[in-house]
């Protein structure tokens, strides 16, 4: 029995020192399974809290949803087992963030999860600033620009607290919201400290660079996209949550370095298999579609080593660019349709249209 407790402690020490990747999630899963077997309420709950973060940050975020549900159910059964005040709001935030990335979850349920997140914030007395930014994003997802502005103002007026996102993530997320509101200059100003390296973290500037690459290409500014791409290329892509970055780099590399783009696709495509997070998939598929569509203008066939699980798999490795472009476009389009229908607002279709227009403008590469 003592060995089991020691193993439990060793597993925790181990995963706490790892980067957020599927490997960390696997070690964390092992911890949860052992805590369950030992029947330790505190460890079962804290292990799930950590596991939800591990899935959200470095694996398939969708996997965090059942984990958050179990976290709250166990917490209800063992109210004294959670000591800190950050856990409730943070777990509710993860659940809400994951649900909006799953078009299968109806909007009304996403709204309830957002409300629950706010209830946890009010109960714990921390997280108001974090919640306001999520509420802003939620409004943008449904096309409610006025509501988004209200929450953005409240976000700015609320002081930071112990569970606020780090300054780099806050600036990046606010900039992304501003871009969705069409305020590009303000967005670029907001994110300037992140791009200059004054504010960095594990997730940034990589996440915001991906957004900015799409934005620059959508707005016919290839030079700016290329500058962002050079920065983003320094990021080591090592988990499914990096599919966002992979999508942006793929879109860009059709113009700049097709071979590097092909290698990137070979590396990242396996992460997309069985992935439940539809937003990640959409962003990856959009990048892959534009990559092959643009590449298809110069060459008909590309040799790639793709896994046998890929529906268009060919043993000889010779793929028609047009066929690949069609496949990725259809996959992206299908996801866009499901999101837009759920949200009652065509944000995803608009992203596809903007990329299409950028392609149609012709030789617009950097």
């Amino acid at each position: 029995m003592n060995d089991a407790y020691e193993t439990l402690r060793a597993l925790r020490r181990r995963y706490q020192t790892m980067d957020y990747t599927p490997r960390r999630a696997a070690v964390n899963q092992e911890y949860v399974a052992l805590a369950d077997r030992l029947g330790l309420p505190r460890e079962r709950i804290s292990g799930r809290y950590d596991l939800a973060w591990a899935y959200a940050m470095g694996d398939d975020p969708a996997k965090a949803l059942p984990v958050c549900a179990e976290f709250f159910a166990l917490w209800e059964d063992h109210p004294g087992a959670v000591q800190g005040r950050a856990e409730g709001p943070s777990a509710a935030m993860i659940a809400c963030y994951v649900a909006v990335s799953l078009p299968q979850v109806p909007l009304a349920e996403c709204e309830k999860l957002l409300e629950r997140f706010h209830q946890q914030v009010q109960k714990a007395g921390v997280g108001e600033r974090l919640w306001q930014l999520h509420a802003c994003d939620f409004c943008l997802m449904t096309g409610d620009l006025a509501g988004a502005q209200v929450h953005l103002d409240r976000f700015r007026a609320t002081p930071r607290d112990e569970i606020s996102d780090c300054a780099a993530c806050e600036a990046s997320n606010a900039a992304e919201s501003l871009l969705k509101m069409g305020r590009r200059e303000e967005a670029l100003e907001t994110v300037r400290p992140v791009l200059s390296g004054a504010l960095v973290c594990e997730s940034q500037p990589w996440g915001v660079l991906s957004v900015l690459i799409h934005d620059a290409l959508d707005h016919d500014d290839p030079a700016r996209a290329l500058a962002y791409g050079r920065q983003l290329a320094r990021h080591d892509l090592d988990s499914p949550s990096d599919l966002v970055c992979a999508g942006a780099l793929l879109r860009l590399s059709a113009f700049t370095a097709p071979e590097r783009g092909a290698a990137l696709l070979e590396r990242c495509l396996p992460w997309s298999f069985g992935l439940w997070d539809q937003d990640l998939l959409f962003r990856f598929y959009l990048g892959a579609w534009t990559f092959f569509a643009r590449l298809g203008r110069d060459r008909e066939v590309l040799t790639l080593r793709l896994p046998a699980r890929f529906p268009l798999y060919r043993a000889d490795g010779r793929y028609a660019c047009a066929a690949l472009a069609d496949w990725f476009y259809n996959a992206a389009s299908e996801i866009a349709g499901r999101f837009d229908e759920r949200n009652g607002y065509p944000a995803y279709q608009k992203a596809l249209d903007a990329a299409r227009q950028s392609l149609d403008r012709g030789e617009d590469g950097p």
Partner: protein
Amino acid sequence: MAEQYHFQVNLGGMLDILSNHLYKSPDVFLRELLQNGVDAVTRRRREQPGWTGGRLTVALEPGRRLTFRDNGAGLDEAEIHRFLAVIGQSSKTELEDGRIPEDYIGRFGIGLLSCFMVSDSIVVHTRPAKGGPGHCWTGLPDGTYTLEPLTDCPAGTAVILTARSGAEGYFQREKIAELVRYYGLALPVPVFFAGETAQLNGVPEDFSAVSRSQLLAFGEWLYGETFLDAVPIQTKHLSGVAYVLPYATSPTMKTGHRIYLKQMLLTEQGDTLLPPWAFFLRCFLNTRGLRPTASREDFYEDEALFRARDEFAAAVGSYLTALRRSDPDRLRQIVDIHAQAIKAMAVWDDGLFRLFIDYLPFETSEGAMTGAALKDAGEAYYVATVPKFKQLRPIFMAQGRLLICTGYASDGELIAKLAADFSLPIEPLREEAMEGVLQQVTPEEEQALSGLLLAADDALSVFDCRSEARRFFPGELPALYAMSDDVQFLRQVQSARDLSDGIFSDALSSLLDSVETRPLATLYLNLNSPVIQRLSRVRDGALLRGAVRLLYVQALLAGGHPLQGEELRVMNQELLGLIERSAGSAQEEGVR
């Protein structure tokens, strides 16, 4: 303005707290005496640059009295009142801009009181080395003290203790020698018995300059063990030796380190300072620049501690890296004995991974194979649980395919890294791969089994599982359960939904409902199994249904999958049904 009051402190109660709660054993009284003595010598060295004569002596009347003397700075009358009479006041706490100088050991000003654990009084004879009269201070456990002038007193301080009833054992020569070596082996000030020349303590300051054979001899003297190897450690925060144990150990084993802070023993536990994989080492380490806890029995976890831990890891890593070139046989011997610890190290450090992976053993369907052998083994699969591996091993053996077990600590990460870094065709075993691993049955056999398969599909549909007929070895294994990542995720969603209510239950239900075609797990029925062959001839639908459901649950358990509520219920129900049926048959036999 509010009036100020002072807490009333019950010294007797304080002493009880110190002796029964703060300190683990009365042994520490000697540690505190050593510490005060060294600090007094250090203070005199600072006050009188060029003076190098520091020494500590212990005079004994066995079983009765102990006089512990230092020839350090000594105290004047004002300092006696201030430092010996106020708990929490240390003579070292007000130096150098409020910071304790690096070469001072103590800080809390409560150490002397620990002497009351072995003595009914504490008598201190002291005279300042800088000049001035001597004094005799006598403190009693009731919190009172007296102070008298002392004419015949050398410079420095002598602490005189008289054995309490029951503490006589601490006033014996062997015990004192043992405690001096235990606590003060690495002290920078020599310790002697009064009138003798043999030093009781003393080790080298820089271990990197000592030969391997000398280090091993020192380790043998210190620990009474012949170690496999000795790794000298010399870094900014650490100085000493890490000895490689000559036998395999587990992470839970307490290895009895000797970890000193500024040459004074702090702890035998390495949990705080050393990396978790260091359980195969026994360390003799002196530390610098780290902070002790109040009880002086461990370190504060701060940035300096983390740096020291990294330095330790780097020093061990560098040594082993060099060993690969200088003495590969010894390295192989170390790996053979301590594979588990080295695997844990290799997971943490890319350099160590590259260094060790060729030597490290992994459990496979073909027995233990090293990383080097796996590099040449061609296509292989791995499974993450030991039960699953045990279930599949005979199947893979029969097929001549290679299966690796990654159910042990660190193996999963190492195998995945091995495959990625060396581009090897080693993959996790997914459900799809099972199709290629298990032997197909002929159309005739399929036809013969169709009744059983139909009954099985019907019985298992509630578990999102279908059946397939295959042949595999061993024949004693009637069924094998395999599920894809999707099935696994949906099982977790379902389980979480059953556990939750309200909004989470709704959201998870929506997720489940959105799956148009539920991915199904597969129960492979083994046509080589006599049980399956007999079941294929059974026409009793209820019996078939019950048997298949039991096979399903048994295959889940054999594969290490946790059972969900409905599966537990089915197991109980079907087992009872079978017992009833058997009992009924037996009764009918009896009637006949």
